[in-house]
């Protein structure tokens, strides 16, 4: 398929359809609304169902129903709305249901603002809702990845019968880039026996409920499920092998950091980059490549440096880990390099 | 309503929880509490077949599927 110019949000929406998604319910919130708007007309063209729900709560619980009935189901939101989705995400997890939920992140707590941000890292990676769980989280860094990750997200969701989250943000959602939409795939709602379709006499009734009620070894089952999901680490590394200081960044921030590494190396400063593509499971394997590193610096669009927790767990206590944050703006290379130099100076360079 | 047919009321005391709806609702006062206690600990009911007209009221008001008319 030829490349077309699309907004990140639109590419994501079109790619969801290409991945066989035929059910969407969402609620307007900036900066993800283009997904809803795009699917409002496009879903009908491909014979799917689109509902503008009365709230995010209704939206996610419609998705739960659609997923239980066998559809590849999608809902999308941002920050405040994504918080409301947490109830349904927890129920999806509990009932072993696949679905894809996109958070086009904005900035701030509470209402915050509609500018790009990466402040939902904790909510995305720590479970987010009530109970004891994780969800797989994919973090695209370009419009093309927005498109490519949809099929992967649905495949992973079905593989593990588990919701998969996409951590996008306002910058990726709003930017326009050339993108190649993957080929359209058909999804059969009767692909899996466990989906509800009507209980034939003499056959076993299908019950979509908390696995806790039905599984003879609930604890063992879940432990094994999460152990397997933890193997799904995806990441990219840029000149990490000889880097004295390794930047860790995902999404739009990682694009800046890729450039930052080049600029710094021209100056003789050996920076590298680890770019987590899965935020959960966090790609701890990537840190094995950082053989020369003396320090790690996360670059995130938030104040507290939420990803530092995971970096610290990955590298252990022997390394300084700090955070370069930017609020309302995408981080800039100059600032990142200055912060890196400061860290290395402290380390005695 | 006469008993012109062969149908009668069958009970399944195992299911009874002793709520008394059937006793209360029976238009012929044909149902009473028995001395029998089922596995769940409830005093079950018995139907006086002489009084019963097989009207189906007990089946309709029972939440625990104790009655069958067949």
């Amino acid at each position, binding site marked *: 398929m030829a490349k077309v110019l699309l907004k990140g949000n639109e590419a994501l929406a079109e790619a969801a359809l290409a991945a066989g998604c035929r*059910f969407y*319910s969402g609620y307007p919130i900036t900066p993800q609304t283009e997904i809803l708007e795009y699917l409002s007309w496009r879903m009908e063209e491909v014979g799917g*169902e689109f*509902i503008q*729900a*009365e709230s995010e*709560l*209704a*939206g996610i*619980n*419609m*998705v*739960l*129903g*659609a*997923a*239980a*009935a*066998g559809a590849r*189901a999608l809902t999308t939101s941002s920050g405040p709305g994504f918080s409301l989705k947490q*109830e*349904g995400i927890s*129920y999806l997890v509990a*009932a072993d249901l696949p679905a894809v939920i996109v958070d086009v992140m904005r900035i701030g707590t509470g209402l915050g603002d509609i500018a790009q941000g990466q402040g939902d890292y904790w909510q995305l990676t720590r479970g987010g809702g009530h109970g004891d769980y994780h969800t797989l989280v994919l973090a695209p860094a370009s419009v093309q990845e927005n498109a490519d990750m949809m099929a992967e997200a649905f495949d992973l969701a079905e593989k593990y019968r588990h919701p998969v989250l996409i951590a996008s943000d306002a910058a990726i959602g709003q930017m326009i880039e050339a993108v190649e939409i993957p080929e359209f795939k058909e999804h059969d*709602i009767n692909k899996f026996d466990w989906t*509800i*379709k*009507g*209980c*034939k*006499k003499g056959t076993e*009734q*299908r*019950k*979509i*409920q908390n696995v806790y009620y039905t599984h003879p070894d609930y604890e063992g089952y879940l432990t094994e499920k999460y152990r397997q999901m933890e193997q799904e680490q995806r990441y990219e590394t840029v000149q990490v092998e000889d880097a004295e200081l390794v930047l860790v960044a995902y999404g739009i921030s990682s694009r800046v950091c890729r450039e930052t590494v080049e600029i710094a190396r021209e100056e003789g400063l050996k920076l590298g980059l680890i770019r987590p593509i899965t935020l959960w499971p966090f790609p701890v394997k990537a840190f094995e490549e950082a053989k020369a590193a003396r320090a790690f610096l996360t670059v995130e669009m938030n104040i507290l440096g939420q990803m530092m927790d995971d970096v610290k767990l990955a590298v252990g206590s022997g390394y300084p880990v700090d955070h370069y944050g930017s609020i309302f703006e995408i981080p800039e290379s100059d600032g990142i390099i200055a912060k890196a130099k400061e860290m290395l100076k402290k380390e005695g360079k | 309503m006469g008993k012109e047919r062969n*149908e009668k009321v069958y009970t399944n005391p*195992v*299911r009874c*929880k*002793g*709520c*008394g*709806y059937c006793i*209360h*609702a029976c238009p012929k006062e044909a149902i009473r509490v028995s001395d029998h206690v089922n596995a*769940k600990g409830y005093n079950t009911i018995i139907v006086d077949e002489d009084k019963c007209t097989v009207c*189906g*009221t007990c*089946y*309709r*008001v*029972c*939440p*625990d*599927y104790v*009655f*069958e*008319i*067949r």
Partner: protein
Amino acid sequence: MRLVAPETVTFTQSGFCPGCGHGLAVRLIAEVMEEMELSEKLLAIVDVACGSLNIDSWRFDTIMAAHGRPIATAVGVKKVRPENPVMAYIGDGAAYSIGMAETMHTAIRNDNVVAIVINNSLYGMTGGQCAPTSLPGQITTSTPKGKDPKKAGMPFRVDQAFTGLDIAYLARGSMADAKGMMQSKKYIKKAFEKHMRGEGFCLVELLSPCPTNLNMTPVKSVERIKNEMIPFFPLGEFKDKKEEE
């Protein structure tokens, strides 16, 4: 006259209390499904709490959804499987309190799902707290001095609130006696007939006994429905779109 509970009722003798109305509602639904030959097609969505035990009380493919959300979940199911009958089975707290937005907007969109709302005038599984349907003066565990309408409002009447909406069907039946059961069954059947014709949202409310949380004998709890609830919650059909047209 042969009266035998349908095979889709599992007789699990599950945790329902003596005199609980859920067993009655389960049978009515199962009978309607049997008569309409829909038993192998029904997709059911239950709420949490006591009504959720229905997942084990019948043999229909069933989702146990989040509190207050079964109607929204049912909408999602129906869109994916439009040929199947789809029913949300919920309590009055779910339908008219935490899930009011979902109930109302499904009605506004006239989505083609059936909602069976069990109205027992309180929150059952949590121990009998005040609900939007609790009667004035009703003593509950959260209104120990009796429900004060000045603070908590009058009992919510779906027949007053929803008749102005463009829905297919709205009715209220009682499960307090054999006559009420037969009438309620007719309402449920009519709702499913309209549902299968694709007419839209059908809501049937059933007045139901909860002797445990009313601190009454089962018999007194059904008498209370007749003497105290029905004056607030009149029985009948309140919306029947096709007849009106």
